[in-house]
């Protein structure tokens, strides 16, 4: 009997360890009607004036020393190719490419209402002194580009957990994007970690490592799909019309949601109704760079001034929408002008398992001394448990009801390039969410 019980236990374990995540069978969703006003235009429908700003070629001259980059110097001039816009968009990953302390307030919520909130301080050291152009053209593959020191503040189980990320300039010959060291106060050990797999999700998050650290534009083939005007990306629920941000000293401040705009107050190109004009780009992984990449295709909405990605969609290997990232930006480093935009709000939605994660960012500008750079951004520093900003935790959401709404589906836009297949349950939850003005969880939707 004991033997049988043990065998059953081991069988259960082996099944669990060997199984993949249970995939969600999907059925075609009701495509619904088009939005009241058509805001999008395909490339073929663009006016002659709009087309003058764009270069539709895919075979522009190449840089002599870096053949996978355009010969035209960064930050490029009108008219823009899709590739050039993508390279500009690379400047804006989740964490900024300039020195600062990033205060990251992150949240995740499942469709059953399980919620996770965390605050992390992330001192950032960016090496290219002449900005992103140097990052692209001068940095050699294998050269360090940035170091992030992630210091967990809350919840209590994460207090003092630290991770040092060392990011590298990569190409086909040097493919290591990240070296990573982790420190846990409960183990009191600093451990070098294997490089995260690009398609793996961050722990308790909807985002993959590629969503977090950004993608290299040269690994994809780019095409201009058209233009669009975005009016909403990250949407606040009716249960919470405020957001907690931080001032330049890292102090928490509460702001009214209606005072937030997609690209911040200083943005010069809002439409009369507060929209942001975007170019819509399609990215297909190049097989010679990315074999068997987890996303079959990505679609970017980048604004027409800074080329900041306000919305990014990922499509799975069957070509269906699998992931949506929407953002609100702010001009966090005005000295860098249009290159100083950064992610203020990030919302990630894993469509396949209906899992939402979000981040709100605060920025404390820093000028690191040479001593700071050597001491603070080395693995051994983590053992000192020295927070580089006051370690103030915050539970800014009082309940899962206060989480952001799922991103708008933007149904009907670019139908030739976008396939949205949602399960009836997710579709029902979305309809309930739009009706209620807040997230509706499984048991609340009323059809169970």
């Amino acid at each position: 009997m004991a033997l049988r019980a043990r065998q059953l236990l081991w069988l259960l374990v082996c099944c669990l360890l060997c199984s993949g995540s249970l995939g969600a069978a999907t059925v075609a969703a009701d495509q619904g009607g088009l939005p009241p006003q058509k805001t999008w235009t395909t490339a073929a429908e663009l006016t002659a004036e709009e087309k003058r700003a764009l270069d539709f070629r895919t075979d522009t001259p190449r840089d002599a020393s870096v053949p996978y980059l355009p010969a035209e110097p960064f930050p490029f001039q009108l008219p823009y190719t899709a590739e050039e816009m993508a390279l500009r968009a690379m400047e804006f990953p989740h964490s900024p490419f300039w020195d600062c302390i990033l205060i990251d307030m992150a949240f995740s919520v499942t469709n059953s209402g399980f919620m996770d909130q965390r605050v992390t301080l992330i001192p950032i050291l960016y090496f290219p002194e002449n900005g992103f152009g140097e990052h692209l053209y001068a940095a050699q593959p294998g050269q360090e580009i940035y170091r992030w020191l992630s210091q967990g503040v809350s919840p209590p189980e994460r207090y003092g957990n630290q991770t040092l990320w060392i990011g590298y300039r990569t190409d086909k010959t040097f493919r290591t994007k990240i070296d990573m060291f982790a420190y846990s106060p409960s183990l009191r050990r600093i451990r070098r970690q294997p490089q995260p797999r690009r398609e793996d999700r961050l722990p308790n998050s909807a985002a993959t490592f590629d969503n977090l650290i950004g993608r290299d534009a040269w690994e994809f083939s780019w095409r201009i799909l058209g233009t669009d005007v975005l009016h909403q990306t990250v949407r606040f629920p009716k249960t919470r019309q405020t957001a907690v941000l931080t001032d330049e000293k890292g102090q928490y401040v509460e702001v009214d949601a209606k005072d937030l705009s997609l690209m911040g107050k200083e943005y010069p190109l809002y439409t009369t109704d507060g929209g942001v004009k975007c170019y819509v780009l399609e990215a297909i992984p190049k097989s010679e760079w990315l074999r068997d990449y987890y996303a079959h295709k990505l679609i970017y909405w980048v604004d027409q001034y800074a080329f900041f990605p306000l919305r990014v969609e990922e499509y799975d290997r069957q070509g269906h929408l699998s992931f949506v990232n929407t953002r609100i930006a702010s001009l966090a480093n005005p000295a860098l002008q249009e290159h100083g935009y950064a992610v203020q709000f990030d919302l990630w939605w894993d469509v396949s398992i209906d899992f939402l994660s979000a981040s709100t960012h605060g920025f404390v500008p820093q000028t690191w001394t040479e001593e700071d750079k050597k001491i603070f951004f080395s693995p051994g520093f983590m053992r000192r448990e020295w927070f580089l900003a006051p370690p103030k935790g915050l539970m800014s959401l009082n309940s899962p009801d206060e989480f952001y709404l799922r991103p708008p589906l933007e149904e009907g836009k670019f139908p030739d390039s976008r396939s949205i297949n949602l399960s009836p349950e997710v579709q029902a939850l979305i309809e309930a969410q739009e009706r209620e003005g807040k997230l509706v969880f499984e048991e609340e939707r009323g059809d169970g």
Partner: protein
Amino acid sequence: MHGKRGLLSVVGSVLGGLLLLALSANVSPCYGYFMDKQVDAVVNTWSRFDRFLSTFDPAGRYVRQPIERQVPALTFRGFLRQWSDIQLSGDRRVGNRQKDFRFSQMQNLLELELHYQVSPNIEITNINNFIYDSVYNWQDSAGLFAPRTSETFRAYHNFERIVRELYISYRTHNLDVVLGKQQIAWGKMDGQYIDVINGMDRRESVQLEASDYEWRRLPAWMANVTYFFGANSLNFLWIPNFEQDRNPVPGSPWYSPLASPRDTETKAILDGRQDATGDQFRETKRPSTGDFGDHQYGLRLDVSMEPLTWGLIYYYAWNKNPTSFIVDRDIDAAGDPYLIFQPRFTRLHHLGITADYASALSNMPLVGELPIVLRVEGLWTKDVPFADFDHQDRAREGYLNSGIIRRDTLRAAIAVEFAFPGNTSFIFQPSLLYTFDWRKNLGPGFGGAVGDKWNVLPVIFIGRPFRFTRDRLRVEMTLIPWISGPVREWQGIKSKLVAQYRFSQFITGRLIYTAFSSGDRTDLYGQFNKWDNIGWELSYEF
């Protein structure tokens, strides 16, 4: 046997039920589509419970936050943990043990941690642990009587144990000075290789896990100074206060069944109903805090040369366990000779190395690129004292000697960690314990192989979170085979299976199955064949 079957069935049902509940709570939407209404009701109830737990943090809200608001310079945190293990074997005699208990631990641990920022450079830290293990009170067991020897096994009851850490730290860019009671973890491997600074509470014997070292290390009063230069550092330790290892005592759940005398005899001696017979042991001689010559010193250098980091250590220390030296021989009333031993701690020189290196294997079948990390750690210890039973026999015959010989020992491990898809972590860690110039009839000694010249432990670990639970469920399996030579060959295998579930960001539950299989009854793992157990931990952090 009937009792065991009943117990297994209950445990199996509980395990299955919990797993079903956990899985059903997080199934993807399409699963809900196929569920009937009863299962839907369970999911809905769980969903409501999920949302309730999301913000359930009473100690944080009503204790921690008000205190921190009142004293802004104070950071206050802590946790409450319930830790229980239930044995799968019924009542029986095992070796010298009267094993009539089912729970081998029912520990309740409250930890309170305070940090007070005196100035930007100066901080005072205090960590307190309050433990109560109810196994000794909640079971009617004749085999559990450890509190008669040491109350610490039941509850922490004195300053030494409750106040685990109390230190003041001063830091500048290049210098850290930490003075006070503290614990130091050197090394980065699973298991203790160069992690030898503090003594350890080894009440769980072979079940002690690296994840519990934080609460099992025995902090000591010391000065800890680190100088940082560039990405490198030099660490110096001066430890006037000596804390030895605390091993299981007679009447505790993990006391070795091989150790004599029998439990009944031990209790009779403790009760004064019987005198101890055989060899005599004098009171253990300990190093003195007041004697500068008795202090311990450590030095560690860490160097970062991306993608390689490495370090060297030297530790002039005391052996954490006393060695019994023969000091005399006498004849008892029956005319039999017996020996008089003087247990005392001996000096050891430890030299160690640690290194790690990251890389990736390209074009691997099925997984494409495979990131890996290589870690190496080793500790060579000079002149470790070993009891020599040949020498003891000669002493018994009248040729008086110390009964001790000294040997160098080596313990080392190489770990290769692979990052497979799905955040699956796989670690292969072959470890070696080796006694130089070993010979039969040697007792145990620090760092050396157990009961043999060499031990090889090819440790295998695999763990992964499950995406369909949104990473709330994580399952880990560890296998530790104990290979030995040239005498014993095989000393058994320890298997450990852990299912961890995050009920909320404050509350975590763990189910742990630990088994000790095969090996002879005199082998390291073999002797604990009847100690297989299922444990659970429920932890609330605030």
